[in-house]
């Protein structure tokens, strides 16, 4: 039988190799899944991972989508990664994403039709604050009443979805929308529109902010006392306490950062790619970002790569839906499997697999 033997120190090679291994395993398992669905597995894998980037027919459309989809995933996952390192589990980023979009969007619509360069920055700020405050609810309840932040933040996702429904059928409903539950279109309001900065690249303001966030997160984590505190709080809460880390402040900061970043991502999404607030606005980025955070090993650079890969599966999944008529849900299964494999192979970092010899009693 196999036996697990703890390594004296975590293997650096495995830290880099395991995500690659997880992706390969997912491709194999995904191939089997597509074969069961009666599709050619090699074709399916090619459509998902290759065609969006290099197919001559579709790539001109799909390539810009890569940045559009990756930016929110990376931004949200970066925020989550701090908390996950410190064992603070914000799984309600989807709710913070929605609240950011509502708060920022509402600020923009309040100024309609005034044109000013100050409006968009103000909206971004409002979006970040919206997400931040929504994340402060589980933080406050955790600190003050010891309520489990996992359950509270998740419940707040459903509250946010319903709140969005109330807003687009109420105060934020478009006066020119024929009574449909949608807000005014942001691309008809230049001051609030988050358009492409360079045509056909998918590059919008949010992408630049994402890049900046990656760099800031990297510096925070590696070279700032906060990164140290977060890492200690996760590895040994007692040691962290002795070294003067206040666990309540860690909770507040970790949830606050993730909420603010998710809210900002929501604002960039609603004013750009989504275009308007509607009940179809929540796309599950907040949940997929959890996978991105783990696949990137909670490391800013890793998260950036993982986000790009996950964006690729989104786009490739849509292509596969059109070309092979596989159900939309199969890509969700694919992403779920990826997280399973990632968690499973993680064991190789701290353990060695040995063939156990027969033990003599």
């Amino acid at each position, binding site marked *: 039988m196999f036996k697990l033997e703890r390594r004296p120190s975590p293997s650096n090679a495995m830290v880099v190799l395991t995500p690659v291994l997880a992706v390969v395993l997912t491709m194999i398992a995904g191939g089997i899944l597509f074969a069961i669905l009666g599709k050619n597995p090699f074709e399916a894998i090619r459509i998902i991972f290759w065609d969006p980037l290099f197919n001559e027919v579709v790539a001109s459309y799909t390539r810009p989508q890569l940045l559009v989809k990756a930016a929110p995933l990376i931004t949200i996952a970066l925020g989550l990664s701090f908390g996950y390192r410190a064992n603070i*589990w914000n799984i309600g980023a989807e709710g913070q994403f929605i609240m950011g979009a509502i708060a920022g969007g509402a600020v923009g619509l309040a100024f309609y039709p005034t044109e000013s360069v100050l409006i968009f920055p103000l909206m971004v700020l409002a979006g970040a604050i919206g997400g931040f405050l929504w994340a402060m609810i589980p933080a406050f309840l955790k600190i003050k*009443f*010891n309520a489990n932040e996992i359950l509270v933040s998740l419940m707040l996702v459903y*509250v946010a979805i319903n709140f969005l429904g109330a807003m687009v059928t109420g105060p934020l409903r478009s006066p020119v929308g024929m009574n449909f539950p949608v807000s005014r279109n942001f691309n008809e309001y230049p001051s609030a529109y988050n358009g492409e900065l360079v045509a056909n690249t998918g590059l919008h303001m949010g992408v630049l902010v994402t890049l900046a966030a990656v760099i800031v997160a990297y510096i925070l984590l590696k070279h700032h006392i906060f990164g140290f505190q977060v890492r200690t709080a996760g590895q040994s809460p007692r040691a962290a306490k002795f070294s003067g880390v206040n666990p309540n402040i860690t909770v507040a900061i970790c949830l606050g950062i993730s909420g603010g970043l998710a809210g900002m991502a929501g604002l960039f999404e609603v004013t750009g790619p989504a275009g308007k607030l509607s009940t179809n606005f929540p796309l599950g980025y907040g*949940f997929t970002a959890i996978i991105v955070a783990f696949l990137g090993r909670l490391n800013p650079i890793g998260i950036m790569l993982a986000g790009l890969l996950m964006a690729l599966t989104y786009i490739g999944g849509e292509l596969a839906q059109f070309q092979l008529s596989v159900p939309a849900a199969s890509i969700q299964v694919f992403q779920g499997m990826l997280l399973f494999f990632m*968690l*499973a192979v*993680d064991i190789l970092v701290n353990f060695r697999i040995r063939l156990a010899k027969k033990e003599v009693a």
Partner: protein
Amino acid sequence: MDFSALSPVALIVSLMVAATPILIAAIGELVVEKSGVLNLGVEGMMIIGAICGFIVAVETGSPWLGFLAAMAGGAAISFIFAVLTQYMLTNQVATGLALTMFGLGLAALMGHSYAGIKPPKFGTLDIPFISDIPVIGPLIFSHDYMIYISLMIVAGVWYFLTRTRGGLVLRAAGENHDAAHALGYKVIRIRIMAIMFGGAMAGLGGAYLSLVRVPQWTEGMTAGAGWIALALVVFASWKPWRIILGAYLFGGITVLQLNLQAAGANIPVAYLSMTPYLVTIIVLVIMSADKKRTSLNAPACLGRIFHASS
């Protein structure tokens, strides 16, 4: 608004129907947590149960076979969680989340050709004369069978945990896995069995949703019920009987807000739909506020990874 349309008896009957899915799922999760494992994948296991039960019930025409299939499906998918957390020593929170996402996706994939179909009707208890007594008849003697079964499961779990040796061993694994291991109990085997029981129960609860409560298959139909079941375990302070109390309380709120929606209350539907989730948060806060009591009731090894290093 017309409140006279809401008859108290009908309200209580429908709140029991609304409560039963989370009741069954929560009692399963209670056993899992008592063994020291935190499985956040209840939502995923429930929806897998919902679709497995639905498919089998529709194809065979028998809701009973559907329920059995739902339990098998829930247990099967929970086995992935069991292997990952017990043998591969993965983080239980992350693995539970993965289970939920995977389950939601897989269920949608399995069910995409089953939307809009009516499942076979599930029987209700009907004792001649007794079921026809006004008030008492509908309140006690004419529910569907699964409501009685769910209460029996709670009684069974209570008996097992508090009155049998097996229950004692399971709780020992949850309170102190190193001590249980030292006494020669197979901690990992106990936990895997507990996880699969939890999976089977979550599956059963999910199938009740798709076969009796709604009854129909729609993508993502659990809509947070699994998470509410998790909160219910905290609410019940890990005590089986209190799960019933909690579940019926949530059922009552759900039914009340649905009735208010139907009665055309002067509040936008979206705000009413929020209430079960908001109430869950409020209840969680109240139950967790007393740190001493929570730490006394919660299994001491909840969520901690066990690796026997010989």
